[in-house]
């Protein structure tokens, strides 16, 4: 990726925004845990927030949002097998 200077400066602003979002979400998920929601809701909420944070990191810090198809395909394939691996405890 060749980046022009202006582009990178724009990137930097995005990084700061993402950073603030990550911090807010971290505080939100910690606060939510103090409410002692029922286990199912607590797990869903915690994983939901974690997924948003992960998406932000992957999309902006790791530049996945503007990444090439080949990387996306590798991750798609990996994601499929990753889910399969997570399903493994259900296999009895």
């Amino acid at each position, binding site marked *: 990726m060749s980046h022009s200077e202006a582009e990178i400066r724009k990137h930097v602003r995005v990084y700061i925004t993402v950073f603030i979002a990550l911090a807010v979400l971290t505080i939100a998920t910690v606060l939510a845990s103090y409410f002692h929601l029922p286990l199912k809701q607590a797990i869903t909420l915690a994983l939901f927030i974690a997924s948003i944070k992960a998406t932000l990191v992957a999309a902006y810090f790791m530049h996945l949002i503007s990444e090439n198809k080949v990387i996306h395909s590798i991750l798609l*394939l990996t994601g499929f*097998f990753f889910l399969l691996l997570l399903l493994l405890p259900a*296999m009895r």
Partner: protein
Amino acid sequence: MSSDHSHDLPFWKKYIFSTDHKVVGIQYTVTGLLFLFFGFCLMMLMRWQLAFPSQPLPWLGQFFHEKTMVSGIMLPEFYNQLGAMHGTIMIFLGVVPLAVGGFGNYLVPLQVGAPDMAFPKLNMMSYWVYFIGGVIMFCSFFLPDGSAQSGWTSYPPLSVIANQGQTFWLIGMVFLITSSLLGSINIIVTIVHLRAEGLTFFRFPFFIWSQLVTSFLLVLAFPPLEAAGILQLMDRVAGTSFFMPSGLVVSGQVLQASGGGNPLLWQHLFWFLAHPEVYVLILPAMGIVAEIMACNTRKPIYGYKMLVYSAIFLGFMSFLVWAHHMFLTGMSTKMSSFFQITTMIISIPSVIILTALVLSLWGGSIRFTTPMLFAIAFLPMFGIGGLTGLPLGLTAADLHLHDTYYVIGHFHYVVAPGTIFALFAGVYHWFPKVTGRKMSEFWGKVHFWLSFIFINGIFMPMFSMGLAGVSRRLYDPTQYAHGLAVQPLNVVISYSAWLLALAQIPFILNFFISIFAGKKATDNPWEATTLEWATPTPPGHGNFLTEPKVYRGPYEYSVPGAQHDFSPQHLEGIN
């Protein structure tokens, strides 16, 4: 490997810590062959005990430590060590390093027209990490209690309560896995990025495709085993209970552990790797066979695209069948039905590949060279291996055949006369490119025919033993009446194994003598079309004299209107 570019490098940098993919490939090949032979020796020792249970091993017995053999009579501990290490060494230190590390490293850059691998230093590192893993595995034999003895599958809780050798096994595996990961990442990037101009994906030799799929399998399937290995290491070293359920009583003592673990977790993670691993073992072999068959039938491979799609599908499906190794662990019929179906589905692309390769003979002009003989023999041998997988993939038949010699016969037909024959074919085929000299055809044929006869003598009787219900990993099968009934077969198998060892002597001599005294080979002695034959023999540092360009598919043999019966990929206009 002499070349103007590297003459100024010191010896150790040129031949030992070399980053040249050809040197690394040769290092892998030689180490792999040595480990293959070592693993074979372990098996020959086991064969004595199986053929003549509890009789002293003549002459050789005196050289063994008293913890392994008492006055030449093998102890069950030692038998279990031999069994576990035979499997581990053959798969992780012999066949995979040879197929992916050796052939992959040497041939992939040549066949895609690259000067080296994408990450040469990483390449060197992956060899040395493999080497360390091998040394750890080998050294574990000299531990006070010997090496790992819980089978190559290392099922807990047995492996967790086993001796120190198991810890070495796990650490060794972490090294081997790391090495494989680095190596396969390197191969993928090399194939995708460093291919020569004009070499589109559908102009790849099938060998390249097989390496690409194999590398993806390694990258995605090995880490779960690494995870499992780490967990087992924690169980053994830090006293955790990942695989240890509560309330275990071992030899009259309640086991001091927190409990709460699940032994089946290991099996799931292990087979999540180990089934794709089967295709890691077989795909490169198929690649080698396809190369050699196209060259020696002097015609294109039949159904090349079908072959490629089948290999990709095979790789994908191999992740979805792992639990067919676990039919008897008490799984529900829903689960077992699912895995039976996927197992039957995965047999289809295997059949397609085999059929395409057999059909490739049709219409050819077949040269019966030594590599071709090995490649042809691969077909029926792999066929037997594949077909006998069918009863094991159906839970109903597996009820009787699970963990018997039938299983041993089945996967050895796939790996030994299957993959290892293909690897031999590869050694004979590419030897002239690597050394500049040909191996003797006569002794090659002697090697082939003797190996072919004796290897069937080893594995064919195992099906009968398996049907009779003889379990695997038995130190003395004659303890059982049903084992005693088939004991004569064990004697036949053992003699076949020892004779097979003798049959390797022509190969070993041929290999070493030909390096120095073989017939000089030209750059393209087999008149083949793929890019590796466009290099000088042996290829120098940087491989190609000029950057190659590719004009056609990989197997353009006997093109109508061409002057020669082969049209190399790098030549413009038909040859």
